[in-house]
Structure formats: structure tokens, C-alpha cells
């Protein structure tokens, strides 16, 4: 314990800031839960919206968001993990590889609406996918690629160099070494970081605005070339396009479902990480 006053003041300041931040999060979540929970019943979760979203449920938006989450994962995981493996295990430290890496990190700083417009231009119009689950998933995937790449590289770096050396010295090829002596130990970390990124994608509005989200579409998608409703976009519509105060409770209900879904995805990642840790660190 220190007795210097300024040091004590500093500790208290940092503690106060932390508590203030936590309080903000608790307040927001509490508000959403308290106001959203009364709205949620079986109909809300399983029926299509009626009367422009003022009645009925949000089932198509839930299904649409799940499609997008799965689609985003299918595209971004192989691409992102592949790039991370390349950077971490294959790329030599050259000017070119440094440029590539900088490019990837810069991607993380690009506003999501720019990704949305990029997706509109490339996937929807140029490649002719139209507004569809495919175009939306690709757009979301590109947006979270930097998160996945950085998290995966981080996880690959934690694998001791001694494993790689042991494997190579036994005559393993580089790929065999990665496959059998590196990936098994890096994969939990890679997946955890990646799932957190995918959770973020689930809540994004801007990238899906032009590429997939439908204003009102009670039918469920039958292929990746269909448009879908999505929770964040539905929330955006309810919040901005409805002067009617009856839309309020529906907003909170939708927000609660969306938050629960994102937190659920994150919880999966956290539980998975804890389990893998126990298995490999013992």
C-alpha cells in the first residue's frame, strides 16, 4: 500500500472511470431488458411482423440474421485463418509482407458504411448477386476479416517455436508441421477471436443496408440468393421510420433479442476457450 497522495488519487480516478464505464453498460442493458422483456412472448419470437412492424413478431428477422451469421462465418473463417497462417507461418519478413499486413490492419479502420457501399458496388451490382444473403455475408465477412486475421495470428504466435522445430527436425514438411504441431494448439484461440468478430458482424446495420436487408419480407429465404430481413435493420426501421409511439416496445423487444443473440455468440466463444484451455494447458 502506498502512502503518496497523488498515487492514491490516481488509483481512485482509474477505479471511478472503470466503475462509470461498467455502470453505463449495466444501465443500457438494464433498460433494454426491463423494457424489452414484457414484449417478448411466443408470438413475438415466432411470427412475422404485421401492421408495418407495430404488431406481430420478428421471426423472419431472427432467421435472416442467423443466415447472415452462418454465411459470414463460412466465408470469413477460411479466408481469415488462411491469411493468418500465411502471415505467421509462411511469409518472410519482406517489404511486401509488411505492406500486406499494414493493408489488413488498415481495413479494420474503414467505416462500416463504406464496406456497405463497397459490397453494393462489387457483389450486388458488378458480380450480379443482387441484394442477397450471399452479397450481405460476403460484405460482412470482408468487414471482420482484419479482426479474424489479427486474432488468429496472435493465437498462432502463442504456439511455442519448439513444437515447430521438433516437427521439422523429424522430417515433417512445413504444412505437416502446421497441421499437426501448430494448428491443434492455436485453433481454440483462433476460433475464439474469430467468433467475437462474427458476433460483431451480427449486430451491424450499415454493411447489410444495401446488400441484403429487406424492409418487410415475411417469407423465409430458400437460398443464398434471397433477400432476408435482419434484426439490426429491423430495429433501425422501427426506430427511425415510425412516429407511432406503439413502435417503442417493439424496438426494445427487437433490441433485446439482438443483444441476446450477440452475447450468446460471444458466450459460446468464451466457454469454448475455457474448455480448450483446460484441455491443453494441463
Amino acid at each position, binding site marked *: 500500500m502506498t502512502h503518496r497522495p497523488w498515487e492514491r488519487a490516481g488509483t481512485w480516478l482509474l477505479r471511478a472511470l472503470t466503475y462509470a464505464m461498467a455502470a453505463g453498460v449495466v444501465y443500457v442493458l438494464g433498460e433494454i431488458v426491463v423494457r424489452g422483456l414484457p414484449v417478448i412472448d411466443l408470438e413475438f419470437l415466432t411470427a412475422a411482423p404485421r401492421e408495418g412492424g407495430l404488431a406481430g413478431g420478428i421471426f423472419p428477422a431472427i432467421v435472416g440474421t442467423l443466415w447472415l451469421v452462418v454465411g459470414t462465418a463460412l466465408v470469413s473463417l477460411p479466408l481469415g485463418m488462411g491469411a493468418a497462417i500465411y502471415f505467421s507461418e509462411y511469409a518472410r519478413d519482406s517489404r511486401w509482407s509488411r505492406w500486406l499486413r499494414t493493408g489488413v490492419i488498415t481495413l479494420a479502420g474503414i467505416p462500416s458504411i463504406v464496406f456497405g457501399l463497397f459490397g453494393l458496388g462489387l457483389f450486388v451490382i458488378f458480380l450480379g448477386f443482387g441484394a442477397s444473403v450471399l452479397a450481405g455475408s460476403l460484405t460482412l465477412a470482408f468487414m471482420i476479416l482484419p479482426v479474424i486475421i489479427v486474432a488468429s495470428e496472435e493465437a498462432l504466435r502463442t504456439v511455442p517455436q*519448439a513444437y*515447430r522445430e*521438433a516437427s521439422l*527436425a*523429424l*522430417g515433417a514438411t512445413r504444412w505437416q508441421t502446421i497441421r*499437426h*504441431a501448430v494448428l491443434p*494448439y492455436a485453433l481454440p484461440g483462433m476460433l475464439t477471436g474469430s467468433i467475437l468478430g462474427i458476433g460483431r458482424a451480427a449486430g451491424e446495420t450499415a454493411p447489410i443496408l444495401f446488400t441484403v436487408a429487406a424492409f418487410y419480407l415475411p417469407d423465409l429465404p430458400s437460398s443464398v440468393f434471397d433477400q432476408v430481413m435482419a434484426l439490426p435493420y429491423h430495429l433501425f426501421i422501427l426506430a427511425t421510420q415510425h412516429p407511432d409511439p406503439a413502435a417503442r416496445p417493439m424496438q426494445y423487444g427487437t433490441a433485446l433479442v439482438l443483444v441476446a443473440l450477440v452475447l450468446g455468440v460471444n458466450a459460446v466463444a468464451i466457454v469454448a476457450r475455457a474448455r480448450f484451455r483446460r484441455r491443453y494447458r494441463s
Partner: protein
Amino acid sequence: MTQPQRDESAAARRGEPQAQQPTAPPRTKIEVERLSFWYGDKQVLHEIDLRIPERGVTALIGPSGCGKSTFLRTLNRMNEIIEGTRHSGSVRLDGQEIYDRSVDVVALRKRVGMVFQRPNPFPKSIFDNVAYGPRIHGERNRRRLAEIVERSLRRAALWDEVKDRLGDSALALSGGQQQRLCIARALATEPEVLLMDEPASALDPKATGAIEDLIYELRSGYTILIVTHNMQQAARVSERTAFFYEGRLIEYGPTEQIFTRPREQRTEDYVTGRFG
């Protein structure tokens, strides 16, 4: 400790002639000529010339940073995994240049096994550690894998201690057992040469003794090169000793002569503990 299998049978299994007549001069296994090596701009080996006869133990000694570990790693091309390294000169294994473009580095490392300074078993089971090499080289048959694992563990004098728990994690073993497991893992690919980079430096005296006994047992079946900081160890386990200093090979000869009648003053200073 178990009695490791006779080395003649080890040689016979590898399809080699039975132990040579004691009178016949041993064949040269590794021939190094004017080998120089650089990390970036820094030259760490200067024109090394060295002939290692087949079978037996050769100790590489010298103060830290003298290049002995680097030299060891040029023999299975493990230095290549570090960026910005290059070499000149020649290293021949059974007369064939190992740095030749036509040489498959995977096949080379299968013939030239390596044991590292710190025991580095994979966080897999004991069985899977030893089976790692044979598996990546294509062995899928479970019975044959089991045979290889048992034979390798026996040769590494570890079988009796672990035979009832082959499925346990290798990380649960003691440091000395882990290092013998790493030796078993290296033996499982049926190498002809075994490179050991201070294999006992991270171990306590008892475990060190077990490793030294093992090296002594293995010497008639394998060509072993061992880097060591420990003079007594070099004297105990090796037949030949090479003294390195500042990237150069200063003196090379029978261990007994190096330790009792060195020709070079620097060798004498080092082995008598005047520096190092």
C-alpha cells in the same frame, strides 16, 4: 532401467551390415569441407573441416557463442528455418552433398535426427509423440505403429517407466523422462545420425546420468554428435572431441588426447577451465 536392445540387431533391422570388424577403419559418415555460415552479415562459422566416422559419439565443445550449436544445425539443415542465413562449403552425408538442390530436406532430416536443449515433447500422449515421425512419413498401420513406439521407447530406456500409461500426456512426465521421450521420438524415424544439442543441460544430475547412460548405449548403432558445455560429460560419453572457438574448429581428435594432451594452447586453457 531396462537393458536397451543390442545394437547389432538395430543395425540389422535397418538393412545394414552387421557390426564391422574391429580392425577395419571406420567408414566416414559425415564429411564437412570449408563450411562457413552467416546470420545476415555476421559470420559465425569459418571454414570448418571435419570428418565424422560412422557410429560412435563425437562431442562438440567450446565456450558459448563459439558456433558449435550452429554447426550442429547445419548438419540437418535446421538453420534454414531462420531467415537471412547462408552458407558456403560442403557437407556430405555418406558422400552425398546435403545442400545439393536435388536433396529432399525431409528425407535428410529423417536420416539425421535431432534432440534439443530443452525437452520439447508435443502436448500429446506419450504414444502420439513417438508415433509422430512415422505417421507423417506415411505409416498408418496401427500394429506397426505400436511396434515402432515400443521399440523406440525401449531403445531410449523409457519403456518400463511408461508402458502402462502410453495414453497419458507427455507433459506429465518428469524433465528427464521427457528428454528420453524426445530421444525415442527421434529414434522412431530410424535415423542414422543423431544430433544432440546440450541434451542434458536442463536436467538434474540424476536425469543427466540416465541420458548419458543412454547415449553410451546408443553409440554402437548410431553416429551421434553431442554439443555440451560440460567437460566431464564430453569425457564420459564421447570417443572424439572437437573444440570450437570463435566460429573456428581449433582442434579435433580422440577425446582422451584432447583432454590430456591437447596440441593447442587454447584447447588446453578451455578444458582445464581457464576460460569458458
